[in-house]
Structures are given as C-alpha cells and as structure tokens.
C-alpha cells in the first residue's frame, strides 16, 4: 500500500494580480458556466477577545436567474436549460427536471429507461467525486497547495485518479451524447439508447474502474483526520430497495420522513443580509446537512456488500459525523456507483423505444434527486399547452450553507490560536468538506479574518 507523507505546508495564498503576476491562485477549479453571472464567494470570520463572534459565508446563486428565465418555455426545454446551471453536475439538473416534469405530466419512466437514468447518474457521481477527492481535497489533507504539486510527488496516485475520472466522463458521454452539457436526456427518457453490444463493450471499462475505485477508498482512508464531530441533522432521499438517486422519500436522522411534494411544508428558504443566496432551513429546527455524509449515514444498509466492506476497512462506521471524512465517503460512493453501473450494464436489455410518449397538459410536479453534493429539488407548474408557469430550484450547496457556517464557527474556535494564514487554510479545508459547487454557489472563497478589528484578507 502506498505510504503517504505529510509535508510541512508552506501556507501561501498567492494570487494573480491584475497584470498577471504571481503564481496561480490557490486551488481554483473553473466550471463551465457563463462568466458574467459568476459570483465571488467570500468568508468573513469575526473574532473578538479570542472568541468567534461571527461567521458569514457569502455565496452567489445563479439558479434564481434560471427560475425566471424558464417561465413561458416548454416543459421539454427544462432539462437542457437547467443543465446549464452547473457544468459539474448537469445530469443532476436534467434528472430533477425530467422527474418533476413527468410527475406534472402524469407519466413515469420505468424498466430499462429508468436503469439507464441511474447509470448516467453513476457517471456523474464518479466524475464529480473523483475530481473533488484527488484534485481538491487530497492536496488539502496532505499539505499541498494544489493537485499539480501533489502530482509531482505522487504521479501514480494522480494518474489513477485521472483514469477513473476519465471513465466517469466516458460513461456520461456514452449515455448523454457529450461530456459537458449532455444533450441525450429528455423528458420521457432519451433521444437515443445504446444497443446491447455497445453496452457490453462499455462494461469492460467499468471493470477497470472497479479496481481503481477500490484503490481510491484505500487512498482516502489514509488521510489524517482532525477530531471534529458535529450533531448534524442529515437529510437525504431514501428508497425502499436501492441506494438513492432519482426517487424516494426525503428522510432525516431526526425523524423526518416526507413525500417530496411536501418539501416546502418542512423546509423554508430565508433571506439573510450577507448573501444573495437564500439560507435553507428545516422549519422550527434550523440548519441541516445534505450530500455524501447524509446519504451514506441514512442509507448505509442499501450499499452493496463490496462498498460496505470497503467502508469498514477504511474505518468508517455505518454513520459518520466527521465532515472531514467526507473524502472517504465520496470514495465509497464512487466504488458503489461503479458497481451499480456495472450491474446495470450486465443486465441491460435494449428498450423498444428510447422514450415514452408525452401529452402536454397542465399540472404541478416535484422532484428531488441526489446530485453528487446532495438533494436537488425542482418544482414546476405547467399550463394546458405544457408551458412553464412557475419554476423553483433548490440546489444542494445553498442547503448546506447554514451548516457550513456552523461548522466553521466551531472549527475556528478550536484552532483560534493559529496565525491567520494557517487558520485560513484550515477553514478552506473545512469548507471544502462540502465540495461547494462553485458555479451554483461560490466562485471561490475570499477569506477575511477580523481579529478585534485587525483585518487580514486573502485575495
């Protein structure tokens, strides 16, 4: 097994100035998103008398623009329009919009088409989780400024990560038609589906991915984890027979168990002064946590035996309340997603039709699917012609915003004696536990620490 060494991290927050001088700005991953509405995220931490007095995460939320933009459009346009909200998780947006539209239109997609939807979602989880684990999160834990520096010392590790990510990309391209902004998904199914032979050929790649994903779990399990557990309310989908993707009920570890259409009866979004984003909270209770840790802790029993065994070997229990261990949970979910894709590929029979027939009608539909970062809720109302009258989208990162602030509050308290630079690095790592989708929410973090009025800031 690979041995990892910890570097003395030279904490530097270099940035490119207006003239292009300076090295590349910290870890920055750009997403496929319209430049003009990309926002700048920021984190303000206020410390008074060596105690945290305030933590504010500022994020920027493009989905609001899209909600307005979609009115008057046809129901059939929603998957393609919403897929453009996020370059990293377009499938999640397509799935949530398709399922909500299908509910509004009174149809449901079953059999091999439903399986293909699960399979393409597996591709997105693999891509997204692998990118985050190897390119963003692992360098944090191991004391590297970015994946490029990590790659110099551990080329084989990074190469394996890239290989696994590539198979995830290929899976999305195989079923989605193309890699970024897939175009093959539609309300009612797909435009085109693979033949049995094509599916069989593809499954060879997944067999390679299965090995790589097992190594990914072992790799992430070796990270040094700070001792930091929080009493979260975890919220995720739960389905009677499967690890959740597209369907189920919304449940929590504190007693919630609701139908998706009841979303707004239990959750509310509040405007807060410091952000254009809305803070999502459970009515009467407050912050909640969505994403891999929530999904895992609420659905451990639905993982495959192989994924459960890998989790056990990685020292994970059936529930996990340390947000830093999300890197291991993402790896376990990646392994599960590869296995699930393989299972679907092996059992595949080509459907008679690539999609089911849809008759426009008026109606309301809700859907909540499991994006890599957590539940993504969509609601639409349609008029008689199938035109969108009203659209609501609640992305995962804005749901986690309050819980990220809470984490930081407690986390900063624990590390308050560190100097500002080190503290900022720790905070960045703590925020990254949530893999905040930078296009849906924060572009990248600028951090400001205000210690009794003395302000230090990263750019």
């Amino acid at each position, binding site marked *: 097994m690979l041995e990892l060494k910890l570097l003395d991290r030279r904490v530097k927050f270099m940035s490119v100035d207006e003239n292009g001088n300076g090295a*590349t700005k910290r870890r920055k991953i750009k997403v496929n998103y*319209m430049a003009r509405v990309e926002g700048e995220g920021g984190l303000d931490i206020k410390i008074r008398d060596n105690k945290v007095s305030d933590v504010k995460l500022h994020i920027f939320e493009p989905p609001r623009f899209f909600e307005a933009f979609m009115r008057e459009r046809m129901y059939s346009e929603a998957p393609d329009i919403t897929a453009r909200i996020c370059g990293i998780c377009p499938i999640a947006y397509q799935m949530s919009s398709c399922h909500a539209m299908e509910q509004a239109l009174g149809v449901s997609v079953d059999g091999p088409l439903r399986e293909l939807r699960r399979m393409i979602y597996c591709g997105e989880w693999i891509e997204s989780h692998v990118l985050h684990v190897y390119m963003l999160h692992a360098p944090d834990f191991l004391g590297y400024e970015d994946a490029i520096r990590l790659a*110099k010392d551990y080329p084989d590790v*990074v190469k394996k990560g890239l290989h696994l*990510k590539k198979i995830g990309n290929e899976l999305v391209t195989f079923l989605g038609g193309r*890699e970024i902004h897939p175009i093959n998904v539609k309300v009612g199914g797909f435009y085109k589906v693979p033949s049995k032979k094509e599916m069989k050929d593809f499954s060879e790649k997944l067999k390679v991915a299965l090995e790589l994903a097992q190594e990914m779990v072992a790799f992430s399990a070796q990270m040094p984890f700070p001792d930091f557990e929080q009493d979260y309310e975890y919220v995720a989908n739960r389905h009677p027979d499967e690890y959740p993707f597209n369907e189920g009920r919304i449940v929590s570890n504190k007693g919630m168990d609701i139908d998706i259409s009841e979303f707004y009866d239990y959750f509310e979004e509040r405007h807060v002064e410091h952000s254009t984003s809305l803070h999502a909270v459970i009515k009467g209770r407050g912050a909640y946590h969505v994403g891999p840790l929530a999904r895992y802790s609420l659905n451990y029993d639905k993982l495959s035996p192989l994924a459960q065994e890998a989790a056990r070997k990685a020292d994970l229990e059936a529930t996990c309340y340390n947000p830093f261990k999300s890197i291991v949970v993402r790896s376990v979910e990646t392994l599960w997603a590869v296995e699930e894709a393989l299972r679907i590929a092996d059992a595949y029979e080509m459907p008679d039709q690539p999609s089911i027939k849809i008759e426009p009608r008026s109606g309301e539909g809700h859907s909540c699917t499991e994006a890599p970062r957590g539940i993504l809720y969509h609601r639409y109302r349609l008029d008689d012609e199938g035109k969108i009258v009203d659209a609501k989208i609640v992305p995962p990162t804005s749901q986690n915003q309050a819980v990220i602030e809470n984490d930081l509050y407690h986390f900063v308290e624990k590390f308050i004696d560190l100097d500002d630079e080190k503290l900022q690095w720790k905070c960045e790592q703590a925020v990254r536990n949530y893999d905040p989708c930078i296009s849906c929410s924060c572009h990248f973090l600028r951090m400001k620490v205000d210690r009794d009025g003395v302000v230090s800031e990263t750019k």
Partner: protein
Amino acid sequence: MTETQRKTVVIGIGNASCGDDAVGVQVARQLKEKGNLEMAVVEESGEPTSLMAAMKGYERVILVDAILGHGALGAMHMIDASKSPLPAELFSHYSTHSFGLVESIELARALGELPLKVLVIGIEGGQFEPGDEMSEQVQSSIGKAVDWILYQSENYSYAESR
C-alpha cells in the same frame, strides 16, 4: 509527411454553441475538412482528463483556444508552453472549461505526460455566452489559424529546441 508532423496533434478547444468560444473547435473542423492531413486533429471541450489524454503520446501539440480579448478581437497569440506555464490571466478568467487549460498543461507536465513541444494559439474573443454568434473578426481568424498551422507551424521555434 515529416517525422514531426506524424507526431503532431492539433486540439481545438471550446464550446461550439458559445459564440467566440467556438473558435478552437471551428479551426479543428476546418482542418479536418481539408483532408489528407499530416497531423492528427481532435476537438475537445476543455475538460482536463480528456484533454490530457488527447495530448498524451505525441511529440508536438498545437492547442487552439479562445482567450479573453485585450482590445484586438480575433488577434492570434502564439504562446510556447513547452518549458513554462501559460500566462494564467489570458485563459482562466473567461475560460468556460472546468479546470483551465493552464492547469491541465501543468498537471500533464507534473506527470511527465506533456509533449516535448507545446504551442497554444490563443485567439482573442469577446462574447462567450451560450447562443451568442461568433464575432466577425474571430470568424475571419479561423482561416488564418488553419493556414498558419498547415504551412507555417513547422518552422516555429520552440523553447525546447532553442
């Protein structure tokens, strides 16, 4: 076909439906239409893992991508990245890709997978939104880039060979 040409790949990067961002892809398509090429030509979205895989194994790579305009719409910038990183400010701010070209090249370099000769042709663009048309000036630079790649790139002097 010379030995260098046989070992060359031209990669056009961009999104065909995002205005000037399509320029790299258009250059690749026009090259392919010429036929009888003495070099490999591919289109890429800019996604890092696919991009890195597309370069791997070649001796020379010519990457064509749109860059943020600096006042000369359609102008071509030839940037040699064989030995040193690309100037980040030209590529990252307006890049619509998921892990900039700059980072992809550096990651390939760190892994020892970067071709010996790396040339980036950056074409200044102005509009990058989905549904935008390509600017006239950028449009007219497509043919120029194609000709340069076909007839002049062979003579380009790389840092590597200096």
